[in-house]
């Protein structure tokens, strides 16, 4: 028999009330853990996506940096175009290790997504694209038969959705063009999985953008030369150079406000839960006034009573913390799915990454909340005078 066992047994007296209080803490902790997990998961996934781009810099037409960042990671249509000859000028720079031109376009397909309608992403590329991304391997088929062939190479998911294999035909809506599937890529875990690739010249032809590019991916021989390289292109008219570090920062800036909002919600939830616990335990103390008086008559000191009531709040909050962590871990898949649906751009990979340190941090936070929440009720209980407490309500 000690303060913790007495406190625990007291909590079992009002099971529904205790369960609801634990649930309040659990929800707050689940929000906190999920938020920390999202923060870590998003950053890791974003870094993974950027690392898998294969290049250090993207040269795009001058415009909004957010658009450029989106273009890099998600692709997009209706964006600005640059002249192809810029690609040739950059390619001649001796600092360049590898370079690849791209022309992106998205086309709305009314029959896509099971008849609901969806955008399909088309990217015109040259073979250098695969050289920059050596992890892209063919599942079936191979490279285009010519630099202007009416052929496509489909990313893993694009092929799965369309149920296409080499030799099948692909109709490009809006441009009334039928192309032949030449190859299908293996799953890469990147945005490339959802893309339909075609030869750059073919893309320029069917989308009526001759001599145009949306971007040029550049890998330098020495990554330390990024700043110098950017500087050298500064005076080039009509283009901007976006480094991957900038892209990372830009995307994180985009989600920072959402993170701040979610963080505020988590803090408010914890504060509300704290007040809820204080209120519940305080009510419980008032209900047990006579019992507390008897405890004192039996020899309990004020500190004994304080410890018992404090134990109750810590137990409630620790259980709530544990339940919240379990809830966050078991619901992380669903949380990731919901967040993915809400964000304009969500990187591939595990979007909610719950690390061990978050679990300990959340449990510690729950216990601290318990200690704070329990202080006032415990103090009130410990201050009760035995004779007044015993005679209360007589």
């Amino acid at each position: 028999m000690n303060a913790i066992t007495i406190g625990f047994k007291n909590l079992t007296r009002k099971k529904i009330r205790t369960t609801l209080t634990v649930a309040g803490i659990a929800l707050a902790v689940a929000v906190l853990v999920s938020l920390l997990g999202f923060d870590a998961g998003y950053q890791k996934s974003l870094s993974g996506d950027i690392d898998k781009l294969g290049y250090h810099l993207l040269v795009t037409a001058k415009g909004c940096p957010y658009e450029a960042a989106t273009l890099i990671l998600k692709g997009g249509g209706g964006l600005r175009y640059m002249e192809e000859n810029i690609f040739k000028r950059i390619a001649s720079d001796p600092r360049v290790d590898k370079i690849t031109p791209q022309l992106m376009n998205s086309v709305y397909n009314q029959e896509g997504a099971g008849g609901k309608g969806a955008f399909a992403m088309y990217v015109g590329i040259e073979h250098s694209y695969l050289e920059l991304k050596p992890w892209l391997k063919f599942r079936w088929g191979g490279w285009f038969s010519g630099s202007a062939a009416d052929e496509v190479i489909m990313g893993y998911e694009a092929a799965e959705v369309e149920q296409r294999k080499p030799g099948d035909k692909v109709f490009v809506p809006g441009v009334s063009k039928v192309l032949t599937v030449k190859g299908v890529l293996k799953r890469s875990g990147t945005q490339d999985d959802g893309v339909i690739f075609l030869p750059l010249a073919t893309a320029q032809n069917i989308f009526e953008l001759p001599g145009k590019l949306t971007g040029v991916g550049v890998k330098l021989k020495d990554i330390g030369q990024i700043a110098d390289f950017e500087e050298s292109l500064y005076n080039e008219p009509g283009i901007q150079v976006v480094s991957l570090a900038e892209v990372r920062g830009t995307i994180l800036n985009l989600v920072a406000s959402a993170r701040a909002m979610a963080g505020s919600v988590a803090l408010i939830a914890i504060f509300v839960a704290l007040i809820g616990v204080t209120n519940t335990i305080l009510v419980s103390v008032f209900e047990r006034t006579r019992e507390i008086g008897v405890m004192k008559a039996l020899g309990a000191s004020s500190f004994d009573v304080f410890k018992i009531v404090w134990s109750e709040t810590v137990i409630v909050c620790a259980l709530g913390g544990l339940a919240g962590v379990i809830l966050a871990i078991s619901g992380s898949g669903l949380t990731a799915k919901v967040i993915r649906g809400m964000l304009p751009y969500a990187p591939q990979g595990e979007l909610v990454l719950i690390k061990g340190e978050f679990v300990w941090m959340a449990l510690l936070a729950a216990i601290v909340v318990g200690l704070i929440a329990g202080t006032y009720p415990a103090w009130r209980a410990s201050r009760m005078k035995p004779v007044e407490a015993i005679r209360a309500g007589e």
Partner: protein
Amino acid sequence: MKDVIVRAEKISKIYKLPGEQIAAVKDIDLDIYAGDFISIMGPSGSGKTTLLDLIGCLTSATGGRLTVMGRDVSGAGESCLVKVRRQFLGFVFQDFLLIPSLTVVENVLLSLYFSRQHQDKKRAINVLNLVGLGQRLNHLPAQLSGGEKQRVAIARAIITNPKLLLADEPTGNLDSRASQEVFDLFKQLNEKEGLAVVVVTHNPELGNQAGRVIKLKDGRLAA
């Protein structure tokens, strides 16, 4: 010569209310010796319970001198009074006031925990056997009759080996048969275990069974 457990010299308890003072107990002299069995009787409002609270160090006297086992507790603070209660006193109340979430044996062990004594379960079982509840060790208070609850309360009070057992209307919520059984238990503890017992009661039939009867009226000792 018997040992004096409690010595009250002209003790008073006066409650100060706005505009008036109420003397619940006034100038009472009382010695309680080892082995005494005392009943305190009197009409409602005569100060019986207040006197018991004073003797039991549950509250401090506003006047006079009170010693428990030779220790002057007049005007002592709560931290001092709690030590005296732990060491020398046991309490039984009219409403039993057992902890509903604890079993019978846990309610008894609770007293040892608060008294800073070793929580010896065997000892608790022996005491519960003594009060006739050896078969109800793991029952919750809600599963017991009123008489059984009061016997658990008595076991809880005596397990710490107090010098004096104080009972405030211990039969107030019991029928006449259970009341007599509880009173018989007090007599048994007094006669066989040598425990001094002070019982506040309204019931003259029971009160008159005590070795010494103290009658109060308007906070003072009656004739």
